[in-house]
């Protein structure tokens, strides 16, 4: 009788209760066992896609990932990571790696990654990132691939650097620009604006004292945007300790979050003064290497991807890029997710990556 009811999709309430209680007891046991394993586990393995290191000098690294397709697109692709974090967010694990996805889709992938700046790099500025590092990597990609054209993807501040590079090299080899959650109108970053208010925040004193801004200052700023994040994250981890896949994801993302990078003091100062205080990228007053950064000079096709629940770079902060650039072929896509889950994790696999491939594939021939 019970079998017939189950087959018909109807469960008796008692049977349902018993099963649920059994499941919960099983999960409680699993939590205890796996909780102990979790505490003793080594750091999550990340960034395993085979690659060659083309540049590893001070704060700058350039990787070339080995192709995974029998035929690749003509134009190589360079990913520019944000200066505050490691680029393995693009290559977390097999099956959860944007790099692997792109390689399998036939792209020739290069990634600009950052190491903690050395003591003698405390004076690095926007000029170094946009007029030296990116052009050097572009040249290296050209040499390595034998192709002059290049497509660039920038993530967060990596998007800002790519955008400034694009504006200052309007006749350069870049053919297409993709920006993930890239801030342009810094006046819309309400909390960061309040915290860096020049009435109270003496940036010169801070940078003079530290030289290189420590990673905990950067992490503290991000954490303060979601003050409950660590507590709720830990509670949710406990709730899901029985779920191996959840724990695996958590460990990878946790490792990435805790490996936030320190930032060169002069670059940090410039970011606060020129971008936060003067809103120079939006107002058109930003000057890099004595040249005004005019976003209207960007004429290449542009894809700007923003996250619906981005607490770091809200929509209003990223959206003006669309109006400011001179490109006629431009598209903005808003996808569900947050600042990080947009590019990595199970939802990115379903949302951003196919959308990116669809846009970029036809422009990579």
């Amino acid at each position, binding site marked *: 009788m019970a079998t017939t009811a189950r087959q018909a999709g109807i469960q008796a309430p008692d049977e349902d209760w018993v099963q649920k209680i059994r499941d919960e007891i099983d999960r409680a046991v699993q939590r205890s066992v796996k909780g102990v394993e979790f505490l003793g586990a080594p750091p999550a393995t990340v960034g395993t896609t085979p690659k060659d290191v083309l*540049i590893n000098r001070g704060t700058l690294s350039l990787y070339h990932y080995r192709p995974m397709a029998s035929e690749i697109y003509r134009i190589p692709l360079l990913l520019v990571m944000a200066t505050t974090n490691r680029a393995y967010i693009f290559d977390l694990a097999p099956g959860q790696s944007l790099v692997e996805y792109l390689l399998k889709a036939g792209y020739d992938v290069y990634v600009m990654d950052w190491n903690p700046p050395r003591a003698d790099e405390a004076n690095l500025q926007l000029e170094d990132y946009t007029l030296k590092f990116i052009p050097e990597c572009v040249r290296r990609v050209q040499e390595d691939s034998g192709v002059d054209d290049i497509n660039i993807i920038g993530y967060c501040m990596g998007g800002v650097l790519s955008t400034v590079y694009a504006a200052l090299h309007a006749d350069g080899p870049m053919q297409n620009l993709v920006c993930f959650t890239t801030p342009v109108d810094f006046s819309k970053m309400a909390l960061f604006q309040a915290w860096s208010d020049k009435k*109270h925040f003496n940036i010169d004193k801070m940078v003079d004292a530290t030289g290189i801004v420590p990673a905990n200052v950067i992490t503290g700023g991000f954490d303060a945007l979601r003050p409950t994040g660590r507590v709720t994250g830990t509670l949710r981890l406990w709730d899901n300790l029985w779920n191996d896949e959840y724990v695996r994801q958590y460990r990878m993302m946790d490792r990435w979050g805790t490996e936030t990078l320190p930032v060169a003091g002069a670059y940090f100062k410039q970011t606060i003064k020129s971008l936060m205080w003067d809103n120079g990228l939006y107002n058109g007053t930003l000057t890099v290497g004595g040249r005004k950064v005019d976003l209207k000079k960007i004429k290449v096709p542009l894809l700007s991807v923003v996250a619906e629940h981005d607490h770091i770079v809200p929509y209003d902060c990223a959206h003006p890029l669309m109006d400011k650039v001179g490109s006629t072929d431009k598209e903005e896509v808003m*996808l569900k997710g947050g600042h990080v889950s947009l590019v990595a994790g199970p939802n990115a696999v379903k949302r951003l990556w196919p959308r990116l491939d669809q846009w970029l594939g*036809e422009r990579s021939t």
Partner: protein
Amino acid sequence: MAQSGFSMLDPLQVWRDALSKWEGSANSLANKEMGSEESVRAMQAMMSVVMGLQQTLGKANGVLLKELNLPSRNDIVEIGTRLQRIEDMLEQLSRQMGNPVASAPGSAPATMPPRTRKPAPVMVEAAAAAPVAAPEAPQARGPTARSRGGTGRASRAVGAKATPASRRSPRKKA
């Protein structure tokens, strides 16, 4: 019916819902508070004090280490910088010899695949119709302006016929 009844009485589910609600409201409240001028002033004052303390402690530690004839952090950093310079020179030499600096485990590809790939329209259409991709379409705000594309499909058709793989643009400076 039975399931919804259970959910209502499921203490863990109630706890999960409460946690989500608390998270949202606590973050929103905290953000409001932390954005106020008083909080910002207090935060900056605290940061100033902490940094001042760090500097004073750093100087005191430097004196102590010197007395104990031990290297300070700055000494170690300086040695690290010198080592890094040596590594940089090795990298330059390695590049001049035509070798990448380092490689990840795994066999290096003997030759690069041909750069002849073109997007396959059939596959793209299939992807667009896939269940995972379908819900994304309404969420996207869509093109702000597209001079070349129009609808996604028209754009793809143009893209598929675009630049021949063999074409190379004139060399441009990075």
